């Protein structure tokens, strides 16, 4: 393959150093809630102007992929996703850390992220032009159904009290509507406050709803934040490989879901990880354990969200349509370098594109050793730091993180307010995750719905818009399956049991006569 010529271009000392530093920086930025991949990339773009295009791109790609992975640390150790992509990592990551399996959880997240990242990059390298079509095949109705699919996960998350889970989701959806609507420009639910015109920021919501309740409960007791493991020490790498091998289908499926969802410009890492978590849970034999510290859950979300990195570059490079917000900034950086993205990029600018893709590949592989070491250090610090220092440090992070979203104190106030409400609701049995899901998916669902309605109305056939498109129907089908699978599976199981019972009696009768 002639592409491999560029592998050596990527393997220069400068590029390797950039990839190494990029991944390291990315992990640290991603691990701090509020400091997102988008921000990391935006800050570093000016530095890349001085580099040659491929090296600059490698640095940006490495930071991006490192940041998406770094988000898992805070999700696992502090129950606060460092980036929205890591929301679903909290579901099982934090319970694992609480019971003393934090090291295992981080090692699993590292391995899954590397594998997911590699799958995404390889798809980018070999299948980018054909796959880019996926970005165009998704119209408003598809995004609407995709968001509905994501919301069906609530039925799984709210074990114990489905009604409370659904009410939480409604509340989250209502929160997502605050501000000026994209369609129609109505000013909604701002309570007269101009600072809410832009809506409730998802990251501020995440930090508030997840992190503040954890802190409130931390100060109340003497107990250590995480239980310290006693027997197993070290990275638990062998054990992690074993689990990963047992979950190999889960890993591959989640990586593929991540890549495809990453291609969709309106979705991104949070949707990718929620969808693959939902699918992993539905198909797992250990379904009941999901949400209580099941390794499969971490594998699903972490492989999916790192696969979105490679996936997101597919429409960015092939169509000039950024797949995710960090891609949009990288696209801008490309323009400044004088590189035009689009269908001709892969042929005319092949040296830059393939050097970059190999650089991304190298960065992803470097993430394994760097991630294991940094992750171990992070875990140890969280355990070793006494509570009196840990609580104010995390509290400081919530302030910094929510401030850094827009360099704005309003987001800090929103974060804290939601945190307090979230804690009260949690006490009353309304878990934070359904609220967060509603907040994250609300915009996608509403815009998809209203746009579909407008287009359907113009064409005189609204029903065909929602129920007449194959991809929509397939996603709606999966949503229904997730919602009703426990019932269906139960019914099938019961019928099978009955039938075998009937067969037995028939056999007995036939044999008897």
């Amino acid at each position, binding site marked *: 393959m002639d592409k491999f010529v560029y592998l050596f271009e990527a393997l220069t000392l400068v590029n390797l150093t950039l990839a190494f530093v990029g991944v390291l920086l990315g992990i640290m930025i991603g691990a701090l809630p509020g*400091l997102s991949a988008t*921000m990391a990339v935006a*800050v570093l773009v000016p530095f890349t102007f001085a580099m040659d295009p491929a090296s600059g791109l490698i640095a940006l790609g490495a930071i991006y992929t490192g940041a998406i992975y770094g988000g898992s640390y805070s999700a696992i150790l502090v129950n606060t996703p460092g980036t929205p992509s890591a929301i679903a990592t909290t579901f099982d990551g934090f319970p694992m850390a609480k019971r003393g399996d934090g090291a295992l959880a981080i090692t699993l997240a590292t391995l899954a992220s590397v594998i997911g990242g590699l799958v995404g990059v390889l798809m980018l390298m070999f299948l980018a032009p054909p796959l880019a079509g996926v970005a165009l095949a998704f119209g408003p109705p598809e995004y609407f159904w995709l968001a509905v699919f994501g919301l069906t996960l609530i039925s799984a998350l709210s074990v114990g*009290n489905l*009604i*409370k889970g*659904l*009410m939480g989701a*409604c*509340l989250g*959806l*209502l929160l997502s*509507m605050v501000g000026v609507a994209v*369609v*129609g420009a*109505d000013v*909604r*639910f701002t309570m007269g406050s101009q600072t809410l015109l832009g809506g409730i920021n998802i990251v501020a919501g995440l930090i508030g709803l997840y992190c*503040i309740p954890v*802190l*409130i*409960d*931390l*100060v*109340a*007791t*003497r107990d250590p934040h995480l239980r310290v493991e006693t027997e197993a020490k070290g990275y638990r790498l062998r054990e992690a490989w074993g689990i990963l091998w047992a979950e190999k289908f889960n890993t591959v499926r989640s990586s593929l879901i991540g890549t495809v969802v990453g291609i969709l410009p309106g979705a991104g890492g949070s949707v990718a990880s929620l969808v693959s978590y939902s699918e992993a849970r539905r198909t797992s034999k250990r379904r009941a354990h999901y949400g209580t510290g099941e390794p499969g859950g971490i594998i699903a979300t972490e492989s999916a969200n790192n696969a979105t990195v490679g996936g997101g570059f597919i429409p960015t490079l092939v169509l000039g349509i950024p797949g995710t917000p960090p891609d949009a900034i990288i696209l801008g950086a490309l323009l400044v370098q004088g590189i035009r993205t689009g269908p001709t990029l892969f042929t005319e600018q092949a040296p830059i594109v393939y050097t970059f893709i190999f650089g991304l590949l190298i960065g992803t592989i470097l993430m394994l050793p760097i991630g294991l070491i940094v992750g171990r250090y992070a875990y140890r610090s969280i355990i070793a730091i*006494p*509570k*009196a*220092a*840990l*609580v*104010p*440090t995390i*509290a*400081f992070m919530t*302030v*910094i993180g929510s*401030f*850094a979203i827009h*360099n704005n*104190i309003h987001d*800090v*106030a929103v974060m*804290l307010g939601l*945190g*307090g409400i979230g*804690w*009260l*609701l*949690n*006490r*009353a*049995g309304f878990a934070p995750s359904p609220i967060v899901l509603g907040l994250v998916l609300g915009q996608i669902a*509403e815009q998809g*719905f*209203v746009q579909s*309605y*407008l287009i359907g109305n113009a064409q005189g056939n609204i029903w065909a818009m929602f129920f007449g498109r194959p991809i929509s129907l397939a996603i709606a089908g999966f949503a229904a399956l997730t919602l009703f699978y426990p019932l269906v599976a139960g019914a099938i199981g019961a019928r099978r049991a009955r039938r075998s019972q009937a067969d037995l009696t028939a056999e007995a009768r036939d044999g008897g006569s």
Partner: protein
Amino acid sequence: MAGPRHLHDPVGTTVAALLVAFGAVLIGQTGEMTPLGSVFPITVSTAMMVLGALLIGRNVVIGLRGGRGEAEPEETARGSKVRRIAFFGVMMLWVALLPILGFFTASVLGFFAVMATALHERVGAREAILLVLAGLVIVGGFYWVMREVLLIPLPAGSLF
């Protein structure tokens, strides 16, 4: 726990009632919106109200039957209420003081105030010095990184 004719899950029921009222308020606000802007808020608020009514009804029925009260989640029931409230109060003060005292000063004060709410044991002089030093290093270090490396404009106060 809850005997016959006691309300089942009183906290949850109260919150449900509040959310039903909240939904009604929100629907009231949709009057001025365009049809397209109000379809989602009305649908979701209605769904929330119906679900809330269902939850209240269910809890009342269980209560009348004398069903067992749902145990509160262990985590949120234990420990010191005072510390919880103190922590949240300190956080609110911290955020309120950010624009007045400036990011650095407010954060140093906030950091140590939060530390006080999380301190359960008596600490010796050595430990106390270590904690103070650690706090200053953490706040100072992040302040520097945010300001000088990430070039985030942090609110300046009357002191700095």
